[in-house]
């Protein structure tokens, strides 16, 4: 069936690249998603106090907060604790070490009872007005914004994937058209000696599906190798920030979905092409 191995290889390469673009972007988005979930967790409100707040100011404030019905949990974070945490989490150990005084205020970390954006906002506004509070900050606001941005990205990938899928079907359609033309004599003779349409159609459908499968495998390889290269770079970057982070490749479920999808698209292209071109070859 592979009349020309080079042409077949080029087709598989084209299909592989076309599939690897949306699938690769999907992988990157998945990674971004898991990174965000890791960083944001459940929403919290941080209260930063004025720098001149005394111990009894803090005690008064703690009482007010624990009595507030909208609040689940109150944790006091002293200036010293805050600095330590920053050293551990941010990866900016060296920068912080070079500071000669602690720039951080005392603060409270508050876990609200409700998670809806409107309720959180109302609570944040209420807490901002309390005495000795310099600023009230909704910690996960940025995460929500990023989340929205990711949704946008996902939509972009969906559109890209749809377009490239159509391209893939078109590539297979055309390959099968050429295959049918090259096998014209064989088809005509087979018809004459009693071949059913199904018999004639079968090898072309198999060919389309096989080409799709090999294209899918090619896409998987492209993504895996690219991620390997990226991870090599990410590793260097992560070491510079003194943190541990690596990009995950396609999960086995996603890999399987990729292959099934590519087989299906190849088969679909072949099916459309066969339906259109085979009927034109009638013996005479």
């Amino acid at each position, binding site marked *: 069936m592979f009349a020309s191995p080079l042409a077949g290889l080029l087709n598989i390469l084209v299909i592989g690249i076309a599939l690897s673009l949306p699938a690769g972007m999907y992988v990157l988005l998945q990674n971004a998603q898991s990174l965000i979930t890791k960083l944001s967790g459940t929403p919290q409100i941080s209260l930063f106090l004025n720098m001149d707040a005394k111990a009894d100011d803090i005690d008064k404030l703690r009482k007010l907060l624990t009595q507030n019905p909208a609040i689940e949990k109150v944790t006091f974070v002293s200036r010293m604790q805050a600095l330590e945490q920053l050293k551990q989490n941010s990866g900016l150990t060296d920068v912080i070490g070079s500071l000669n005084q602690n720039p951080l205020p005392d603060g409270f970390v508050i876990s609200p009872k409700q998670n809806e954006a409107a309720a959180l906002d109302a609570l944040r506004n209420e807490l901002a007005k309390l005495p000795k509070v310099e600023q009230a900050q909704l910690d996960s606001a940025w995460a929500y914004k990023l989340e929205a941005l990711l949704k946008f990205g996902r939509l972009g990938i969906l559109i890209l994937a749809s377009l490239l899928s159509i391209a893939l079907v078109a590539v297979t359609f055309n390959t099968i058209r050429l295959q049918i033309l090259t096998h014209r*004599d*064989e088809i*005509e*003779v*087979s*018809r*004459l*000696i*009693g*071949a*059913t*349409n199904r*018999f004639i159609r079968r090898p072309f459908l198999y060919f389309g599906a096989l080409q799709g499968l090999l294209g899918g495998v090619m896409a998987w390889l492209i993504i895996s190798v690219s991620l390997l290269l990226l991870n090599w770079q990410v590793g260097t970057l992560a070491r510079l920030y003194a943190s541990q982070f690596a990009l995950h490749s396609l999960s086995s479920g996603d890999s399987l979905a990729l292959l099934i999808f590519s087989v299906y698209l190849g088969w679909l292209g072949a099916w459309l092409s066969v339906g259109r071109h085979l009927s034109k070859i009638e*013996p*005479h």
Partner: protein
Amino acid sequence: MISFTQVNKHYPGGYTALRNVSFAIAAGEMVFLSGHTGAGKSTLLKLIAGIERPNSGSVLVNNQNVGVLKGAALPYLRRNLGMVFQDHKLLFDRNVFDNVLLPLQICGFDHRESAKRVRAALDKVGLLKREKSSLVSLSGGEQQRLCIARAIVNRPAILLADEPTGNLDNAYAQEIMAIFKSFHQVGATLLISTHDDSLSRDNQVRTLTLKHGELQP
């Protein structure tokens, strides 16, 4: 086995290939179809195989009305027919063995049974030693015999041959006639078209003669 009743066949453009043709061929009969080039012999054979359909009249093959047969049923009709084509219609991208194998592959025979049948058919036409040869190495007569092997490998009840001796010299033509006769002796129905009158006279078989699309009495 084959019966035509008042069959007419026109081609687009007003050309009439067959006019009011009626005849019947019994099972196990061997019949020649003679007439000049363009008399309608090929058209008549094509009507039997359902390659063409009549404009009026009925074509019955094995009690099936071929003229109104659905497209999906045609393959099963053709599996009961062995056809030897004027232009051979062999496939040059495969060897002798694989050309004869094709009808069996289409019918879904298993591997071992197929190989046995292919060799039997090749033996009958004297090409058993050439089974691995490529088609370009075969002479015209050998290609014709290969075409016959492909037509009989399926052991069809009816064999149609369109000018099987067309381009062959007399010795070769007699050889091929001998193959057909042996096939007739085992009970097959044969319809063989030829423009060579001497062939039918020498062999003393029933002959249908076409002239300008009409059957001569």
